[in-house]
């Protein structure tokens, strides 16, 4: 299959244009906004940021019509450990995002768009700004785009280095100049988002898929994937495989194909033990579970995990699961915004218990304690960060309890 998103020699405007770029925008501007939304719904494009919410449905929540200020925001605050596909996309194909945003903005009636890019992506932000300037010079952005009467201004905003700003309402707070903390919902951003106006927030990969959908049709895109999840997905593969990296594959591709065919299997002498399939917050799978799986939203949900952002972390049998969980706990403890009691206190507590288990000072009771602290955080907070901490804790303990018990009995890694 030919890649839709990640293609060679397409990052410059002239290259992108030569491949038929910005023709979908022209086509879209000739359609009614409702027709575009219908096309995207037909494509079964689901949000690529992690939650997998159907993109067309999200757009349709925006009050239709030309009245009132509306915003389109691209979430490029890629911070989920194990995930690095948006950065790759921004480097390789920035115009697909820009064009996708112009089409989406036209569909929802937004005159202003923002790309909230992770602060550390300084080079990507500069690259993106240059691409925007180029697109603007050619009349693909700005006033009266391609003579259609549609105006759309696009701005790049660099974040300041908080994982939580990838949560869409925390992102909006940060974009408005406040401390990045998730907002209470409802109201949802579709009604009250950026600066209090209706707002759609989509991931980079989601928006970058839009031009192809408009170009070749929703049905074509849907047919690339499974019955319920259309299109291709970027997978960021890390761990001891022969060829780690970002791979664009149709949804529904077998995990074994990703590992064996695309990544070239495990490195010599390494044996797969476990897989975190969709970024660090998704529940871990054993190697056997993973090898039997197809990579799409439904299959992973059925297996008790999530496709998430497509950040596939391969774990070999030389790795200690307690140590790995400790690393994750340190991350979530550091990144909890601190608003909600269970997350603020629970993340720190979990890290402390894992520290003593890892260092040999734990007790057998600590394993159940960890599990119950995580359980008490689940589903009880404003945003999903508490769940993102709790899910690995509970799944690591459930699937690799023996390793935790060994530590509780006094094992210390590396000794």
């Amino acid at each position, binding site marked *: 299959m030919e890649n839709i998103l990640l293609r060679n020699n397409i990052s410059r405007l002239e290259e992108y244009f030569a491949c038929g770029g910005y023709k979908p925008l022209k086509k879209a501007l000739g359609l009614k906004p409702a027709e575009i939304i219908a096309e995207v719904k037909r494509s079964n494009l689901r949000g690529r940021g992690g939650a997998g919410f159907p993109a067309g449905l999200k757009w349709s929540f925006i009050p239709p019509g030309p009245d009132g200020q509306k915003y389109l925001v691209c979430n490029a605050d890629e911070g989920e450990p194990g995930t690095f596909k948006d950065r790759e996309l921004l480097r390789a194909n920035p115009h697909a995002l820009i064009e996708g945003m112009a089409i989406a903005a036209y569909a929802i009636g937004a005159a202003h768009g923002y790309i909230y890019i992770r602060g550390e992506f300084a080079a990507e932000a500069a690259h993106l700004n240059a691409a925007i300037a180029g697109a603007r010079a050619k009349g693909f952005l700005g006033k009266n785009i391609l003579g259609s009467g549609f105006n759309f201004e696009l701005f790049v905003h660099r974040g300041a280095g*908080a994982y939580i700003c990838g949560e869409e309402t925390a992102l909006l707070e940060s974009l408005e100049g406040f401390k990045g903390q998730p907002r209470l919902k409802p109201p949802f951003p579709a009604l009250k988002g950026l600066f209090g106006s209706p707002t759609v927030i989509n991931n980079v990969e989601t928006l970058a898929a839009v031009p192809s959908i408009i170009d070749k049709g929703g049905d074509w895109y849907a047919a690339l994937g499974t019955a319920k999840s259309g299109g291709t997905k970027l997978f960021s593969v890390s761990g001891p495989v022969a060829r780690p990296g970002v791979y664009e594959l149709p949804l529904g591709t077998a995990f074994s194909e990703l590992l064996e065919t695309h990544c070239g299997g495990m490195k010599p002498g390494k044996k797969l033990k476990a897989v975190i399939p969709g970024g660090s917050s998704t529940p871990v799978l054993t190697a056997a579970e993973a090898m039997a799986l197809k990579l799409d939203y439904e299959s992973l949900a059925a297996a008790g995990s999530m496709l998430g952002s497509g950040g596939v972390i391969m774990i070999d049998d030389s790795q200690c699961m307690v140590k790995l969980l400790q690393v994750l706990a340190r991350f979530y*403890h550091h990144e909890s915004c601190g608003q909600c*009691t269970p997350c*603020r206190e629970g993340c*720190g507590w979990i890290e402390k218990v894992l520290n003593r288990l890892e260092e040999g000072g734990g007790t057998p009771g600590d394993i159940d304690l960890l599990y119950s602290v995580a359980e008490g955080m689940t*589903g*009880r*907070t*404003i945003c999903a960060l508490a769940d993102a901490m709790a899910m690995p804790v509970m799944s690591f303990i459930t699937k690799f309890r023996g390793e935790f018990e060994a530590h509780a009995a006094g094992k210390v890694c590396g000794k």
Partner: protein
Amino acid sequence: MPKLTIDGMNIEVPAGTTLLQAAQQLGIYIPRYCYHPKLSVAGNCRMCLVEIEKSPKLVTACSTEAAEGMAVSTAGEKVKKARRDVLEYLLINHPLDCPVCDQAGECGLQDYYMEHSLQKSRFAADDKVLRQKRRAVGPHLILDNERCILCTRCVRFCAEVTKTAELEVMERADHSFIDLKEGRALDNGYSLNIADLCPVGAFTSRDFRFKQRVWFLKKTPTICLGCATGCQIEAQHNRNAVYRLVPRPNAETNTWLCDYGRMTYKAVQAGDRLEKAMIRRGLIDIEPALREAATRLDEFKGAAAVLGSPWLSVEDNAALARLARESLKTAAYCFDHTAEQGIKDGILINKDPAPNTAGLKKVKAAAGGLSLEEFTALLAGGKVKVLVAEAKAYGLVKAAAAAAGVRLVIFALNRGDAPASAHALLPYASYFETPGTFINYQGLRRATAPAVEPPQGVKPLWAVVNKLASYSGAELHLDSPAAALKDINF
């Protein structure tokens, strides 16, 4: 008007009503820390989680609006477990220094722990997150970050009520803490409300700190006399001493209480409180002083004048009016005071610093008398030889009276309030010690209630007037505050 059930009870509420408010109407109290009816909803403490039938997750009652057909449970096992869990999380890094904490006895952590948890801690006590301990953050408050549960009521109060925004949550996760913005102090005129709002011992009052254990305090509902707003308050006292004033929230006048109003009790217990009388700066017993003052009044009968006061109750002013008309039989009396009425800061503090300008008008309506201009002119004219007045009201005519060399018989609570030149200073019972009727800027008639006893021998002003009149030969027969109010039409 959505209809729903809460714990099996039916209720219909206006659209937009939250589950917490609807439950409250049914008499069901849902525990909460961050929620406050007069502040925006933050939804961060997670203490008010309740269960909605068919909803997979618990929801916060403070932020979830009632909807048609909802079946809400506030007492199921899921909800109880969530409350226990939240309390456990809140307590793991709490210093548990209740024995030395002023909040003990009125602490949200203590109360809810007893009611909803009673679990043994599973947290290692030596592994707590340490934060900054007590430090002054303004003239009225001490902040102890270690006790803080980060409910942000204080932050929202400063942002939304005083609009001064001194406070902010700094940092993230369990290392986050409340702090002053750089270069700021918490001195916005309403800062002590934060000590009330704070559900734990993080913010405590510098004035009240370590003075009393709260469970010893008795509570007397009364009103604040700091200005014409007339806030409803509670005087909290023990062993005949007032320790603090707190607001009694009410729909008509006040939710909060200003820092100035909260400190008004201090004058009553101050070192310069007049507990005896003074004649020409010499401290003497009240009885001989009254005899002396009566002699002066008799000496200048026909040249005596009486001034009413917007700082005195209607009863006490009415007694002064009767002194003028029935005992001194003078036309030189004035119960006239005009001041612009209204809230000057958008919160509580009134343009009129006197608590009873409206009440004084009632006395004038009944007793008549001169306008303040006429009275001042009369004093300046030199015909008046002796003036009976309350100390703060005397300030209104001070220049004219001093220039004319009028002999002064002054009622005062504190020596510091009284003119040094007074011939006689007479003590009287403050309104923390005796009931008095006041009318606030809204025209609402309210009464003070005595919380403590006056100093020995000190009587209400109307009673002192009654004695003064009888010593100068004309009985007024005032034997109760009600008797003083006889001619007043409210």
